[in-house]
């Protein structure tokens, strides 16, 4: 187990600056997720941590020791790949045993000891019956567990995972998520988990970092990232459905975003008159009510464009026609109300957290 620190890491590939400047500290035993869209540089970061590549500048420290120049095998890290990267020509047993067989003379174990370790890891992950099979004969979930086993058998200091669940079907993904959580609880190995699936990151991580175009946007606990996104990118990226982001202006005592009017008192008076802001409202805070409610205090009339059923309720996309042009928000139906597409509805913004961002910098103003 180790504390992992990235100091001012930058990585250039030819003329492309993939990671301009990344600094992160991951605590000993933490399950830390790095989340971001494709191409944001998260896999590159993982490769740098593993030692498969060197940063152009910056340092990587494990427990205060500079490992930037060390080869992968000297860093004592394990990496689980997106495609598992199992050795196709070896049995599961040989795949698991491989890291132990390759170990340097100083650290190497005898044949019987290796057998013991293999059986132990196989037992831990439920692979005993598969030991003599080849990867080609296994299902996706089974391969994933073999990849985990191969990574764990060396008892690494740091455990790196590159989108390990993205190749599994939805159901398997959910059960594997629970499995990974359990593993982490038991083993307490510092784990750095890279994914583009923000739901996954939010459910698994102790803390997470949001990455975009090679820059860290925010580092926080999942709850805080959700409740207090630091900028427009994090606000729009984290959470499903995505936060409604609307252009808004102060007009008199009201904050107006399209046809939506909110009392200025609901937001902190930190900006001047007529200043434009970006207003962020989570879909949970927008309620869609039957057409009869149109005209009531605080409601706005709109037309349903799309209905997305989800569990007990539905996410509803509503179009408005305002003075400044069309606006669209996503909200949730009031309990008991089952609307249809193209219905006219009334939309109300609940008393809930409103987020305000500076349209120029994207940064958060402070919550309401």
């Amino acid at each position, binding site marked *: 187990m180790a504390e992992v620190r990235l100091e001012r890491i930058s990585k250039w590939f030819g003329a492309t600056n993939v990671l301009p400047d990344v600094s992160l500290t991951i605590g000993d035993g933490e399950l830390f997720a790095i989340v971001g869209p494709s191409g944001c540089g998260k896999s590159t970061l993982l490769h740098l941590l593993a030692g498969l590549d060197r940063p152009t500048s910056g340092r990587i420290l494990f427990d205060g020791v500079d490992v930037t120049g060390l080869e992968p095998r000297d860093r004592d890290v394990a990496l689980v790949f997106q495609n598992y990267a199992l050795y196709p020509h070896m049995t599961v047993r040989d795949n698991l045993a491989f890291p132990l067989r390759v170990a340097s003379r100083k*650290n190497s174990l005898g044949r019987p000891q290796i057998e013991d370790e293999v059986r132990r890891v196989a037992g831990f992950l439920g692979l005993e019956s598969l030991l003599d099979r080849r990867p080609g004969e296994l299902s996706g979930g089974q391969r994933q567990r073999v990849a985990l086993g191969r990574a764990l058998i*060396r008892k690494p200091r740091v455990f790196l995972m590159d989108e390990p669940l993205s190749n599994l079907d939805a159901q398997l993904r959910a059960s594997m998520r629970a499995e990974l959580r359990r593993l982490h609880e*038991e083993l307490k190995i510092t784990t750095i988990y890279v994914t583009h699936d923000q739901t996954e990151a939010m459910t698994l991580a102790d803390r997470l970092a949001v990455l975009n175009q090679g820059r860290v946007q925010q580092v926080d606990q999942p709850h805080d990232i959700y409740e207090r996104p630091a900028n427009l990118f994090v606000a729009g990226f984290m959470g499903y459905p995505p936060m409604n982001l609307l252009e808004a202006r102060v007009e008199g005592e009201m904050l107006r975003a399209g046809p939506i009017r909110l009392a200025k008192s609901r937001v902190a008076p930190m900006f001047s008159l007529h200043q434009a802001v970006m207003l962020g409202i989570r879909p949970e805070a927008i309620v869609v009510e039957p057409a009869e409610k149109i005209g009531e205090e605080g409601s706005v009339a709109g037309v349903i464009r799309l209905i997305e059923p989800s569990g007990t309720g539905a996410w509803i996309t509503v179009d408005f026609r305002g003075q400044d042009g069309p606006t669209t928000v996503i909200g949730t139906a009031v309990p008991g109300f089952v609307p249809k597409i193209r219905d006219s509805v009334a939309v109300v913004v609940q008393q809930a957290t409103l987020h305000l961002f500076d349209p120029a910098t994207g940064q958060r103003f402070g919550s309401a």
Partner: protein
Amino acid sequence: MTGQRSTVTREATSRVCLSEQAWGYLLAGPAFLLVGLLAVLPIAAALWLSLHRRLPIFGVEEFVGAWNYVQLWSDDRFWAACRTTLYFTALSVTAELLLGLWIALLLDGLTSIRGGSPRWAQVMIILPWAVPTVVSAQIWAWLYQPDYGLLNYLLRQAGLATAPIDWLADPDWAIHAAVMMDVWKTTPFAALLLLAGLKTVPGDLYAAARVDGAGAWKRFRLITLPLLMPIVVIVLVFRTMDAVRVFDAVYVLTGGGPGNTTETLSIYAYKTLFQTLQFGYGSALATAMFLIVAALSSLYLLLLRRHLRDVA
């Protein structure tokens, strides 16, 4: 499995640790070394030799600079060999390309009709490629035999010839006999390469073209040919290089005769080197040959590089 901490500390510095890059040089080294010693060095040596007059028999060895090349320029036999070589190359490569394309189209067409060109067809076609060049020369020498050779016999039977043609002794026919033999030997290679190229053309393109109303010839000209160009260029480059350097088969077939009419550059160089033992001049001839091959390849690649864009 308990959460044991990994207490084993890795002592990285006490072990010989090569970077990936160092390993790269180490692993690529032997190839580089071997090629450097046994290929690059000799070529450089040949160049060096070509700047000398070296006749071991007479013990002559003197530096003469570019004199050999000056001699070359006014050497009629050299120019004759050049002409012969280029004539041979032009005929051979054209024939191979056309025949190869035709066979490839045949096999590909059979694939779409039958779902697979028969294995025996592919085996038959690869046979000439596998035959050693000297064997090929002997097979054809026997076929070309004026009195008992099969070719003359068949021509007589077909009524196409009355008197036996002495293919290898007739100065007009000899070079063409050599071309025919080379075409036989190397067309399969061209055909197989072109067939592979044909297979990479997505069938959907043809279907779309048919729907658009294009006939077979149009489809060939506008879809097949353009998409096949990268392979055609590769075949052209490889075959031209091989044809210009041809030695084995022609040497065994005709020895350069009759009267030097089939004397290609390499045969002339070989004779100069190993029969008259003029190492200096022979090397100059060989170097000239190398330059011609390089020039032709570069010319092809320059003129046709737009077709190779996707390949590189």
